[in-house]
């Protein structure tokens, strides 16, 4: 993605080709998560939902990023495979945008031996180190210091790689946010922080839990330059992330992107999100980043047929992934004892 550097400051200047690529990424994420959601029915007990082990192919909590796809798509279009990324509990989009194979990811969600994590992690720990995706994380904000350390290692060892660190709006109220940003600042690390602000921390409206002007103001107070962007406008995310990453790559130290978006689904797949109004949701659906991109592409003269083809390709990709996931086998019991640790391996009790 070396053309990232040449993107005009104004996101309106995006090329049709690039916007189509971004759209494709978003569509692939959406298709993956829609399929995972269906496969997960009965898979988690929370929010009053009961387990139905027979029905569920994907078990355990599934956090969907539906409606937020523009953020990973726009940011990762400006990353190369050699760059690193740390993610959150809501990490499917980050993984796909960073180049992970949805088939291996779906196998992981199905708990298969050939999943990205060999069936050990599932959705909450989805990771593909081979493309620099250092993992989703079950602990809010835990990825922030890890990202700082990864960037610190790059700084110490040399090299051009950078790190993109994703976290939610809720994470800005956890201590590691402060500690990690401060760390990145004082050691001048090649690190882009990306706050995916979907307005909610699980069932809680984040604004009521957050003092001051929010994420960007906090970043600036720590000396990390910050910009805000409409996180549903994939071209805008692409443009601003490109600009910030160019600064990072130029040795400008850590930068911060506050992307405002919206979580169209519940917190986990089973959450009916009864705490928000229908009107709020309807407004948000209007701003679905896929629709926005489609309208924009339409203005470029790229119409239903071409977009339909992209969607069909994504559907086909996911259909293949589902098929592979269904056909693959679970890790054998012995696998539970692999990759614990070298020193002391074999001593389980």
């Amino acid at each position, binding site marked *: 993605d070396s053309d990232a550097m040449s993107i005009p400051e104004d996101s309106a200047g995006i090329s049709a080709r690039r916007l189509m690529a971004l759209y494709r990424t978003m569509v692939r994420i959406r298709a993956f998560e829609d399929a995972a959601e269906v496969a997960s029915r009965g898979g988690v007990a929370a929010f009053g939902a009961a387990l139905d082990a027979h029905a569920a192919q994907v078990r355990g909590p599934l956090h969907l990023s539906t409606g937020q796809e523009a953020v990973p798509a726009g940011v990762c279009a400006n990353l190369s495979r050699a760059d690193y990324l740390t993610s959150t509990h809501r990490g499917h989009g980050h993984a796909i945008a960073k180049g992970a194979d949805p088939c291996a990811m779906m196998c992981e969600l199905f708990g298969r031996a050939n999943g990205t994590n060999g069936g050990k*992690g599932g959705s909450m720990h989805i990771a593909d180190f081979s493309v620099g995706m250092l993992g989703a994380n079950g602990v809010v904000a835990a990825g922030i210091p890890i990202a700082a350390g990864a960037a610190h290692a790059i700084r110490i060892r040399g090299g051009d790689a950078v790190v993109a660190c994703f976290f939610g709006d809720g*994470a800005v109220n956890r201590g590691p946010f402060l500690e990690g940003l401060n760390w990145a600042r004082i050691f001048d690390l090649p690190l882009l922080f990306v706050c995916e602000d979907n307005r909610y921390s699980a069932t809680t409206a984040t604004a009521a839990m957050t003092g001051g002007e929010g994420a960007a103001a906090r970043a600036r107070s720590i000396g990390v330059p910050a910009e805000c962007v409409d996180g549903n406008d994939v071209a805008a995310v692409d443009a601003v992330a490109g600009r910030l990453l160019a600064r990072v790559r130029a040795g400008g130290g850590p930068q911060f992107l506050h992307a405002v978006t919206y979580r169209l689904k519940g917190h986990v797949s089973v959450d009916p999100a009864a705490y928000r109004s229908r009107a709020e949701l309807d407004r948000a659906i209007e701003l679905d980043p896929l629709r926005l991109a489609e309208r924009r592409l339409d203005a470029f003269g790229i119409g239903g047929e071409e977009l339909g083809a992209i969607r069909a390709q994504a559907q086909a990709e996911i259909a293949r992934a589902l098929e592979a996931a269904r056909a693959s086998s679970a890790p054998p019991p012995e696998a*539970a004892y692999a990759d614990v640790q070298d020193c002391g391996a074999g001593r389980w009790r």
Partner: protein
Amino acid sequence: MALMTYAQAACGALAEAMEGDERVVALGEDLGRGGVFGQYAGLAQRFGARRVIDTPISEAAILGAAVGMALVGLRPVVEMRVTDFALCAMDELVNQAAKNRYMFGGQGRVPLVARLPAGMWSASAAQHSQSLESWFAHIPGLVVIAPASPADNYALLHAAIACDDPVVHHEHKELWSLTGEVPQGHRVPIGQAGVLRPGEDVTLVSWSKTVHAALDAAQAAQHSGLSVEVIDLRTLWPWDRETVLASCAKTGRLMVVHEAVQAGGFGAEIAATVAEQLAIPVRRLGAPRIPVGYAASLEAEARIGSQRILDALLEWMEGRGRRRIAAAND
């Protein structure tokens, strides 16, 4: 007498405690919507946001603030969602809450209840599945509770709130929907184990969700002519040594079973104590020392179910275990 779930039982106990003592408050993430497992359902509506407090995702501040609240006259009930997230508040729990009274020479008390739901939560993998009760039992100043039934959750949450010490209240993540009878006004003192099934040949001690597996295994063992006494410890600290020792003295054998990793688990404390005091044969069965994996086949390796307990009992007692206890038990 009412039939209710483990979550409802806790909710009822908390509601009664809040009704009876206005110093009792609850705080944690998402409580205003009833908590993600419904264990606070209706409480915000009933007692208001001033006493059922929605918090930011700030575990350190949640527990630290609870310490400050307790010092200034409240009796906070703190929700950590899962034990695993409480790792973000270990200084506050272990260095602050547990030691405050002592290090300040008894000037203050910290009557808080830290609810740390423990254990696996189906397919939630390594960071949402830990049982760390042995950590807290090791820390002077802390009381540690782990109820196995709706009735005990009801009674012990009441007891925890009434207790003037900081209490770690370990509910189990997979018991929220368990239904059972909760007698009106039911009370169980902290520190009192329950003998759930009398037996003659061996004493089986457990707590939390594994109690149910232990009972099933005891039942099945009966068919093999083995009479198993099952004790639900209920309180990890101070644990009911008298009841356990009396039972062991009678049966002459002890097996402790728990969901936590066996190495360094609290079963070691019980087994060691019984070995020291009675010099009878002891055995433990806890999880292998592996993180909990996501896939069902991996997760199963970390589960201590009734079959595994039964096999261990039979293998030990009569040399006729039907298969190796755990594939990888070295």
